[in-house]
């Protein structure tokens, strides 16, 4: 298997998840399994928009660490991660994760792992703007529990 391809992009502008999925599939002809995940800004009573911030340079580095960990755990052909920053309207794509592997299990598990880690280990900060007032979104206990699922040393092998 050639060296896995990793792409990490932090986007100031909107991206098209369907187009990204199509490119990813085309780029991985040898993969028998491709999993894509999309997180979008939900329509939520009164929330006008989200504002996402990052720490230029450091956020990229932390996501690289997460992808390195995923490549240690699963035999992947490729990983693609896109994450928006800036102002997002409801239904705007926030995060896109794609994994390619020979078979489905590693592709599923790695995508799940990547999302859990992006939630709790990637430096992004999110505010909800509703009726002109901003509120910081705090991580949920569930996010930490999701990440903790991967702590067992042989989990996912």
């Amino acid at each position: 298997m050639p060296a896995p391809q990793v792409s990490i992009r932090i986007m100031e502008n909107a991206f098209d998840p369907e187009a990204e999925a199509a490119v990813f599939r085309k780029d991985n002809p040898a993969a028998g399994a491709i999993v894509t995940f999309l997180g979008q800004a939900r329509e939520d009573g009164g929330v006008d928009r989200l504002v996402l911030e990052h720490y230029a340079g450091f956020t990229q580095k932390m996501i690289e660490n997460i992808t390195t960990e995923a490549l240690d755990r699963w035999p992947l052909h490729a990983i693609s991660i896109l994450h928006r920053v800036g102002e997002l309207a409801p239904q705007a794509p926030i995060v896109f994760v794609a994994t390619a592997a020979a078979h489905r299990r590693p592709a599923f598990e790695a995508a799940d792992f990547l999302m859990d880690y992006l939630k709790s280990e990637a430096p992004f900060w999110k505010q909800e703007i509703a009726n002109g007032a901003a509120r910081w979104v705090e991580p949920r206990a569930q996010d930490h529990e999701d990440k903790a699922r991967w702590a067992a040393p042989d989990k996912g092998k």
Partner: protein
Amino acid sequence: MATRILFFGRLREAAGTSEQLVNIPDAVLDLASLIEWLAGDNHALRETLAAPSTRIAVDQTLAQADARLQPGKPPEEVAFMSPFSGG
């Protein structure tokens, strides 16, 4: 040499700024004392910066509050970060 102190997320509001340039005195030997020195009389800020949920990066590498600073060789950048909420 001056050090850039960065505040992210809620901590930016607690600090009242996203960034400040400081000259760290030689007497400040670790991150815990850097927090004391930065917060000064601002007890609310001190508590927030020292909270277990606050993460600190020194020159873009995660560090614990007891991490030592090298006298005469201050970091270029220290970031204080409230809990991450991406995705």
